[in-house]
């Protein structure tokens, strides 16, 4: 579904991503693990076209998307859920969903507000509330719901567990498993290994802008020295 090879990106003169390669298969959940500042968010943004990739290839569903505009990439069926949530605070829950609305994608059940409220019941209870007056967890759910309204085939989920209470994280994990069951592919970025292992099939570790390790979640849980070197704080 998504193949990234040789991806490089810069902020000004700072080399942020160096030869990043990763892959997400159809219906697969892959987690991009790494410490703060390792390059997880930038990888997501470079895939989405929000940070222009300096070199490398990003193929999505057979189409080369590196260098294309974010809105074109989104229209191909790639959904992006940013780390900072970026809810439209002046818009109500329904209006936020409306901004994300795109036509249905062949082979996937189209998302409607009703289905999303079934997935995130707390959103259904506050349809007219402005995005600015929601808790962090509710905003996180709204961001995901907003992206799902575009009927994506793959979503980039940037640190969805960040800053959430443990009980909310549990619910988030359930939601992600439900999405996987729908047939959606997911590239997740995380620092929280516990959360990642609840939902992911495979893991890729990034450190200082380079990919250091890739393998199954089970293999990562076995490899103590890898976790020690790249993930322990």
């Amino acid at each position, binding site marked *: 579904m998504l193949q990234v090879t040789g991806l490089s990106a810069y902020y*000004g003169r700072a080399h942020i991503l160096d030869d990043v390669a990763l892959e997400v298969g159809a219906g697969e959940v892959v987690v991009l693990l790494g410490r703060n500042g390792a390059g997880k968010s930038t990888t997501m943004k470079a895939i989405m076209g929000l940070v222009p990739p300096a070199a490398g290839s990003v193929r999505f569903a057979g189409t080369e998307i590196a260098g294309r*505009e*974010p809105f074109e990439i989104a*229209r191909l069926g790639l959904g*992006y859920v940013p780390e900072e949530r*970026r809810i439209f605070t*002046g818009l109500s829950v329904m209006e936020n969903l409306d901004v994300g609305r*795109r036509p249905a994608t062949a082979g996937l059940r189209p998302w409607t507000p009703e289905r999303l409220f079934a997935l995130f019941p707390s959103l259904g209870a506050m349809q007219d509330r402005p995005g600015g007056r929601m808790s962090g967890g509710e905003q996180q759910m709204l961001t995901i719901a907003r*992206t799902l309204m*575009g009927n994506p085939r793959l979503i980039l989920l940037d640190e969805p567990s960040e800053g959430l209470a443990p009980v909310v994280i549990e619910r988030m994990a359930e939601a992600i498993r439900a999405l996987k069951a729908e047939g959606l592919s997911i590239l997740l970025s995380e620092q929280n290994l516990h959360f990642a292992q609840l939902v992911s099939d495979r893991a890729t570790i990034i450190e200082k802008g380079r990919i250091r390790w890739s393998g199954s979640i089970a293999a990562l849980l076995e490899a103590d020295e890898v976790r020690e070197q790249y993930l322990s704080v």
Partner: protein
Amino acid sequence: MENLVLQALSGLASASSLFLVASGLTVIFGVSRVVNFAHGSFYMLGAYLAYTFVTQLPRGHLGFWGGVLGAALLVGLIGLVVEVLLLRRIYRAPELFQLLATFGVVLIVQELTQMVWGAQDLLGPRAPGLRGSTEVFGLRFPLYELFLIGVGPVVLGLLLLLFHRTRWGTLVRAATQDREMVGALGVNQRMLFTSVFFLGSLLAGLGGALQLPRESVNLHMDLSIITEAFVVVVVGGLGSLTGAALAALLIGELHAFGILIVPKITLVLVFLVMALVLVVRPHGLLGKPEVAARGGQGSAEPMIGPAPAALRWLALAVLALAVVVPPFLGDYAISVLTELATAVLFAASLHLIMGPGGMASFGHAAYFGLGAYGAALAAQWLGAPMLAGLALAPVAAGVFGLVFGYFCVRLSGVYAAMLTLAFAQIAWSVAFQWVEVTGGDNGILGVWPDAWAAPKLVFYYLALALCIGATLLLRRVVHAPFGYALRAQRDSALRAEAIGIDAFRTRWLGFALAAAAAGIAGGLFAYGKGSVFPTFMGIPRSVDALLMVLLGGVQTLSGPIIGALAFTGLQEQLVRLTDLWRLILGVVIVALVLFFPQGLAGAVRARWEARHGDA
């Protein structure tokens, strides 16, 4: 009492017209973050096009209203073309560049309008069916004014419906907050921006077209409406429709009653209100704090080092020429050189604010003019000798720099630029309207140097010494601890404060210092010309200064000097050679913003660094 009711009604009519224009401006700003100077030009075009349509089409309702709507629609399309050709390319540029680019459009439109319709005022027909007057509370009031009073609320209602009841409106409101995110959700921002620009320009065109039965159509409509529209939009809060409506009401009535109560200071009053609102509510009545631009990928400001040896030699050579050659030149050439010297200092002083200070100023001419008026008033009313006048110039400009700066440097970005503009307009209005003291539009004449400095050559050397001295001093300041603090607070006010720098005071003093330096330039300019006029403080002169700095390049210390020489030289030649200098200047500005966003010195520096490795 009767008079008051009529005055209130005509205030409402003005408010309504003002709102049409301001609503377009604020909607455009909300989404694109571009402060569009050319909005006033669209208003003017609306009036001219309506004049042509209405006078060419058959008389009657269809001819008139069809002509008005046709003009509005055509202006919308013109706005669309401007957006696609120009603005679309500069959405990521710094706001002063955008302001400047749209000012380039103002110049181009002015010239073209004059070419098509001529310089004389045009009088349109009155609106069919709304010619007479009617009774309101037993008073006679023009029907057309009553109609205008109705138009504003109707347009506000339609716009609110459009923005809150349609998906397009939802997208626009979302993009106003975070356009990048809207793009990442699959919305084509380009189409969205273009459509918003079309709507905004259409509203400006409609505002202008509806003025046809009310007042003559002339070439000054653009700048006079745009300053008022700026005030309304800023007072209301950038991007807020309801805010613009409130502010239009406030300004409209202020005008209507201001004329009754204090006719002398109507112009000042409007800008005073704006300054007051911004001081109390830095984001306008209903505005929200600006969210820092998302996902900025701009590289850090380049470091400023001492000039490389080659540049020093070049500067010395130019300076040597400036000293040695003039005795062999005629009086006219020497006057031009004197003007060049003051331009260099003027530009260098603005550069201190913009470059190392990282602040926006759209009213730097105020301090140039205050220096000039300080010197001229001292000569006129106190009989001060020239040296005393010249000494007073930086003091006057500096004191006002301290006062105005105290408010301006608290704001940032567009609001700061608008507040500096407001203060400059206050200074301009005082010079323009306080005829007894300043001579108003006629200015103050006979401000000549003392006998010993009367020969053009002597005065030139004096100006050269003072300007070069002050410019070098400003350069020295940038490399002094104060300059470090200034640059530190520009790069990060928070981090600067954390290491003990008082960011506010640093900006404030930097602003006042730049004002004082501009005052020296203004004082010398006054004695060089022998007279001062309100235009010394006008918007065009502030734009001149900006052009010099941006033409040279903000990021280098030599930039403003090169820019001042290039700009003044170019303007001098253009005015002499062709009547179309506004058109050419406008095109040059637009080209500059599009192709040399780093300025001349910036471009040279980039080539130099490419050749000599990373500095």
